[in-house]
């Protein structure tokens, strides 16, 4: 696994600040040739910042970087690329309208006098495809590819540029379990060819399975580098969070059987760009937490839109406590007791540049009609209520008038959650509730979801994080191509079963 004595990459005492925030504080990092090295840490620990500097996207305030023992100073991304470093970002860097070939060769097109040499280009992309054993039609457009295919194209891209060090930022966040396995096979194959891999993740079982060594970052500083066979997951968690009391397992739960609160019958509709939900039927009892799993793009967003009223159903019925709401608007549904925590906190969850109180007030103010809209928005009673909410939910903010952007991701999500919980909903629809939220805040969110269910509300949680669903849900529906592929009891289902359903495995013949 480890060849040679000099690390292929060594970063020493790297420090980087953005304004008053120190993202990296004297970080040390080392990578050996042919190694798969995992970099773990909570959200905001500084992992992406460090990697972005290794990729030349910005320069450290102090500290040095050595490649094969030779000092390196990257002024710009093309310096890093020239030095053999490639990066696969968490959000793909593929131009949607361009073809696979155009995306792979972007920035390094074979050219003749400023014009693209198509023949050479077509030949050149075959080599990386051979290396990782992945063939794809180079004429397909990036926007038509599945997420796993897009990720493969990203890897082809870095290999085309001759990368000897590949950085992957949270590569498994959008993959189904089988796709994750295939990615790991690819990474092991690359490592055996001498390519060094750095792999950022917050899923520790992945680290145990595929990495050779792991480095832990916490609050911008290194908290140790360990060969993977010398450390256990709880130790890593303790280093990541500085706590030893973080619950990792499933909260045992027994809830009284209650009548159905939400019944969906033959629901059909679509929220572009997701695929359409096709004649979906299911029900949720009061006090039940229903998890929705599936590879992104298989209808989860459409389903959320249909449940909340963001999109109107083409056909079908949706009964909440017996009343059909399928054709009602979002505001009407809110009045009927549906609450919604959107997936994209910054775009839809709260007004990031407005004040905390304006973010909290959204639903209460939205329900006013007629001439009362000329009344003041931020009244004394609203201010009192808001202060109470901030206290009760432990939202850390300088004041309720502070800009929401000054809060951490976890606290921002708390604002969204608090606002929705305060409406005492009958049905709560949540998408990716702990995305970009540190473990501590995530714990709080899980507790709040539990409490809500205990009060008898029906809860829908859409999440790309299977571990999360396995932890908090009572049942898990798997969506595949807009239909329900499976309905599992969360207490007993395995990841493999989930993964199979997510990729249509139940529908395929036995391999």
């Amino acid at each position, binding site marked *: 696994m480890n060849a040679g004595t000099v690390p292929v990459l060594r970063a020493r005492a790297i420090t980087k600040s953005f304004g008053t925030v120190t993202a990296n504080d004297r970080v040390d990092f080392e990578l050996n040739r042919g190694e798969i090295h995992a970099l773990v840490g909570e959200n905001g620990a500084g992992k992406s910042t460090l990697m972005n500097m290794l990729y030349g996207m910005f320069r450290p305030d102090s500290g040095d970087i050595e490649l094969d023992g030779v000092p390196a100073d990257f002024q*710009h991304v093309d310096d890093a690329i020239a030095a053999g470093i490639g*990066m696969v970002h968490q959000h793909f*860097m*593929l*131009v949607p309208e*361009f073809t696979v070939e155009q995306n792979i060769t*972007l*920035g390094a097109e074979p050219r003749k006098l*400023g014009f693209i040499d198509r023949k050479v280009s077509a030949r050149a992309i075959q080599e990386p495809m051979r290396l990782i054993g992945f063939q794809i039609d180079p004429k397909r457009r990036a926007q038509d590819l599945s997420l796993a295919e897009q990720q493969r194209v990203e890897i082809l891209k870095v290999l085309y540029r001759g990368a000897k060090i590949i950085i992957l930022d949270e590569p498994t966040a959008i993959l189904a379990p089988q796709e994750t396995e295939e990615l790991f096979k690819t990474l092991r194959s690359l490592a055996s060819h001498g390519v060094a891999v750095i792999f950022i993740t917050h899923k520790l079982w992945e680290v145990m399975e595929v990495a050779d060594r792991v480095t832990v970052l916490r609050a911008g500083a290194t908290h140790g580098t360990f060969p993977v066979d010398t450390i256990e997951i709880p130790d890593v968690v303790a280093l990541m969070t500085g706590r030893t009391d973080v619950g990792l397992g499933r909260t045992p739960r027994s809830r009284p059987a209650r009548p159905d609160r939400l019944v969906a019958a033959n629901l059909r509709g679509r929220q572009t760009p997701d695929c359409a939900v096709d004649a979906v039927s299911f029900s949720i009892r009061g006090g039940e937490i229903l998890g929705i799993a599936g590879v992104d793009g298989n209808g989860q967003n459409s389903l959320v839109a249909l449940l909340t009223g963001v999109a109107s159903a083409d056909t079908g019925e949706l009964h909440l406590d017996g009343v059909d709401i399928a054709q009602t608007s979002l505001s009407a549904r809110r009045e009927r007791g549906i609450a919604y925590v959107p997936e994209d906190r910054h775009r839809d969850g709260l007004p990031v540049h407005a004040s905390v109180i304006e973010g909290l007030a959204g639903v209460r103010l939205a329900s006013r009609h007629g001439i009362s809209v000329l009344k003041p928005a931020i009244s004394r009673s609203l201010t009192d209520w808001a202060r109470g909410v901030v206290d009760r939910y432990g939202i850390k903010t300088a004041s309720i008038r502070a800009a929401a952007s000054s809060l951490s991701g976890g606290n921002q999500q708390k604002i969204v959650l608090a606002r929705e919980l305060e409406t005492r909903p009958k049905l709560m629809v949540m998408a990716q509730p702990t995305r970009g939220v540190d473990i501590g805040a995530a714990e709080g969110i899980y507790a709040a979801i539990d409490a809500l269910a205990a009060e008898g509300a029906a809860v829908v949680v859409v999440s790309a994080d299977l571990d999360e669903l396995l932890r908090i849900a009572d049942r898990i529906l798997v969506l595949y191509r807009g239909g329900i592929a499976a309905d599992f009891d969360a207490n007993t289902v395995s990841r493999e079963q989930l993964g199979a359903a997510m990729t249509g495995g139940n529908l395929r013949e036995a391999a």
Partner: protein
Amino acid sequence: MEWLDAILSSSVRMGTPILLAALACLPTLWTRDINIGLEGIMIFGAFFGVAIGLVTGSVWVAITVTVVLAAIVGICFGLLVTSLKVDVFVAGIVLFVFAGGATAYLLDTIFGAKGNLADPSIPALPVITIPGLEEVTVLGGLLSGHSILTWTAVVLFIAMLVLDRTSVIAVYLKAAGSHPQALATSGVRVNRMRVLAQMWCFVLASLAGIQVSLGQLSLFTVGMTGGVGFVALAVVIFARGNVALTALISLAFGAATALTFQVDKNVVPHELTSILPYAAALVALIFISRRSRRPKLAAA
């Protein structure tokens, strides 16, 4: 038949500034930095073409100097929008308003004129007549008797058509607009592409302005471009970045403008007929918008 010739000829003449301005704006659409101050650049081009032509007596010097100035200012505008992070919408509005004020100011201080500048020694754009073709119906009106800038526009159109399909620069410009991070992480300087697009825009739009002033009556009147730059903006939006469509729609608007002059002034006064190209553009905009998502002028 002479009537048809006259219309065709006038369509091409009216269409030339629209085509030049639309081709100018196209790369800024690609980079999603659309320059809405197009009209302002044209006014500047029209003014400087006349001013330099009057002072030097040479139309070639006028064109060259105006183009060079436009390139320099275009680069500055590009830097404003990229390095100094000025919002391109704000910059475009200021460009438009500033152009009107600055040309009026310069007209007054340099030439002591208010409102317009006419002088017999202002040169006109050379016109290319094709002997033999001149007398042929339809083809004569279409191809002969047009200024060199019309032919420049044709050459530029063909060049852009070729570059669009096969050049690296076009790929970079489009990537810079569609997914700038993808381009940046591939090692290309996105801001350079954006500045390049603005420089191109200023150069071609200034030529469009010269066509308006020196290509017709060889004089300058305040506001003489009359909103043609905004018509070109509409053209670019309609064509969604496609070079061939841009040319086609530009000529259609050129024809529409030519037609407004054909209507008898006593039947319908010119004020009303002048709205035809804009009304047509608005109707087309409404019709097209219903059917699909279009690039917006103030896109987040």
